[in-house]
């Protein structure tokens, strides 16, 4: 890499990598502290679950920040007040009939319902399996539990655990990498680690700089930049 490309962003990444080691050691023990944001949709117990789960889906590590620093739980809570979470983007008319997975989602539940039922089901399952709240499990146990939700055959009533997990994972990824205007991707940390320039949206002079690393940092819709 030419020295001119050792941008502020690269520097930040190097620093993030260094702090990651100590943070990881701490996070391996228990769920991280909650953010100052007060949830509107999620109850206190749900909020703790959400933190403890997001924290493992995108952990803080040598690659960059994790879901908690990126504000993912806040993003998901704020999404719960949008038309999407009320099912306004989906065809919700009955009858609701189950069918082969490849024909897609068929349940009557909106994203809000999926979280409510999914978190309740997952917490109960954790109590049953580990005799403890999911949020108080150590990192390795939470990972194993989440894998169980992802690939196992557990059902929370008629909601498959894997369906709930799919929504949680999808929203977590959205929160980490969407424009910070939606409450996640704090400090543009998700973009810094992927090298995505955000709303820069003008590459006229970089299109044919073949194979070179893009030199500028990210910009958000509100003008925040790194």
């Amino acid at each position, binding site marked *: 890499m030419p020295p001119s490309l050792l941008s502020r962003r690269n520097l930040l990444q190097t620093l993030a990598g260094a702090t990651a080691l100590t943070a990881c050691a701490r996070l391996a023990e228990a769920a991280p502290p909650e953010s100052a944001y007060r949830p509107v949709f999620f109850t206190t117990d749900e909020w703790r679950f959400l933190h403890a789960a997001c924290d493992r889906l995108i952990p803080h*590590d040598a690659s960059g920040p994790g879901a908690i620093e990126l504000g993912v739980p806040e993003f998901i809570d704020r999404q719960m007040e949008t038309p999407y979470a009320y099912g306004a983007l989906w065809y919700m008319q009955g009858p609701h009939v189950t069918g082969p997975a490849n*024909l897609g989602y068929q349940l009557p539940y909106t994203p809000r319902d999926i979280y409510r039922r999914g978190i309740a089901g997952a917490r109960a399952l954790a109590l049953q399996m580990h005799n403890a709240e999911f949020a108080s499990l150590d990192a390795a146990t939470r990972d194993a539990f989440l894998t169980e939700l992802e690939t196992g055959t557990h059902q929370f009533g008629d909601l498959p655990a894997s369906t709930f997990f799919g929504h949680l994972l999808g929203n977590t990824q959205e929160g980490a990498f969407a424009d910070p205007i939606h409450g996640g991707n704090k400090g543009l940390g998700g973009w810094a680690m992927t090298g*995505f320039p955000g709303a820069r949206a003008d*590459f006229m002079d970089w299109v044919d700089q073949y194979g070179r690393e893009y030199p500028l940092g990210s910009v958000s819709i509100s003008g925040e930049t790194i």
Partner: protein
Amino acid sequence: MATITRRSVDVVIVGGGWAGSIMAKELTEAGQRVVMLERGGERSTAADGAYPGSLDELEGNYRFKIFQKLQKTTVTIRNNISQTALPYRQLAAFLPGEGVGGAGLHWSGVHLRIAPDDLTLRSTVISKYGKSFIPEGMNLQDYGVTYAELEPFFDKAEKVFGTSGEAYTVNGKVVGNGNVFAPDRSDHFPLPPLKDVTGAHLFRKAAAEAGYHPYAIPAANASRQYTNPYGAQMGPCNFCGYCSGYACYMYSKASPNVNILPVLRRNKLFEIRPNSTVLHVTLDSTKTRATGVTYLDEKGNEVIQSAELVILAAFQFNNVHLMLVSGIGKPYDPVAGTGVVGRNFVYQNISTTTAWLDPSVWTSQFIGTGGGGVAFDDFNSENFDHGPLGFIGGSPVWVNQAGVKAIAAAKAGGPPGTPRWGSAWKSGMIDTYKHAVRMDAHGSNMAYRDVFLDLDPTWKDAFGRPLLRMTFDWKDNDIRMNRYVVGKIAAVTKAMGARQTHLGMKEFGQPFDTRFYQTTHLGGGAVMGSDPATSALNRYLQCWDVSNVFVIGSNAFPQGTGYNPTGMVAALAYWSAHHIRTTYLKNPGPLVPA
């Protein structure tokens, strides 16, 4: 709500996308008073493509800001006739448009002509390989129109869209570095080709080394400032990467909203009524003549709009749905093999290959333009000998990087076998985003007797109409074609020096999966042709049974091609309009005797 009768007009057009806008422009030029009914809202670049607020990947690609919302209406889907079709409840496999401009506001811009052999595929296959080469159950057909007849209309559409590209031959003379397999042209592209992004640049070199014939994909994304024949202006594309799914904030991507509607809106003969959902076409007692349409306006009033001529331009499957609920044409019956409306439903047979390059090579996937890239056509259409291969159809192969943004990168993840979350996902995903190149085999899909559209017996839309039902699956012929062409990509990624390659291909026995985006290139269902027993429309896209109804869209394709549909849809719209203007309006009635 009340029932309102509006003053009769010459022409009513259902749908405000490319097809409807082209027809409206042509028919107002012919002095016709035209009303366009669009179920969605008003849309403009100034509002929907405002910088920087519109550059929001979550809203654009994951909350489907300017796509159709499925709340009011959708389709049901099943893989075969013995299954119960279930509603397509969440947008995924395909993303229809809604609102003024239709999908033309948020498409990508790949703007291709058709391969001449694809227009006469049945005749070509029979003459080259014999009739027994056509598999049992495949409804292979000719379009009933030739490339020579359509050429002036392809040319016209490219000039209206401001298409960037490089010709191979113009009037029989080799003039440039374009696609050696492309048919001859009467003129150059209006604009020079767009620059290659890194992935396309490397692909161009590697494809040539592998012995293929790479060319710049013709793109309706302006490489320079441009004024089209209507006087509409476009600015140069800056590769912003927010192309597919967005209204172009640079006015560089062709759309009805930028290239046609601004001119139409100034014409007194033209009126556009957004938030107007057409429920059905009204027919007279003989069922051979349309009297107009019935629609719901914004306030929920039922409006009767009579017209001399009805143009359905509501998009492929909506056109078929409107024909079925209105009783236009005989519905297809797959068991008896009779009827035509719903017959020959097809899709795009796409699969994506990924090559991971050396970590010193940054592929900057966020840089992109919707229609641009580099392709080779060595395994498309009849450009190669199918005799020893035993399948029909083909695929162009290309790097067509419309701009991969961070959420899409996160969801795409790392190489096969990487977990979907956690630290391994994170590092694999970041490496892939920074150093990989993606290329598609964008294949044809043939039509089959048991792949079709009809009305669902159970689910209804918000207006009480039965939903359209799709019966669709991938068939052996098409899977074998895909696997053959994808196999040919290995030589390209090897020449690229890829450290790892994942050849993405269709697997036998894996059914069509509605949960993953493929393309919105749906076709057929009300196809054009020369035989009323196998086509719903004649070669001018006029209904055989109701001659004052023309149905414009990819519904007219008898089978799928390796190309994206819009270039062909636009040319067919101009072709149909030309014959309405020069023949039909002088003497309304069937343009071809049934």
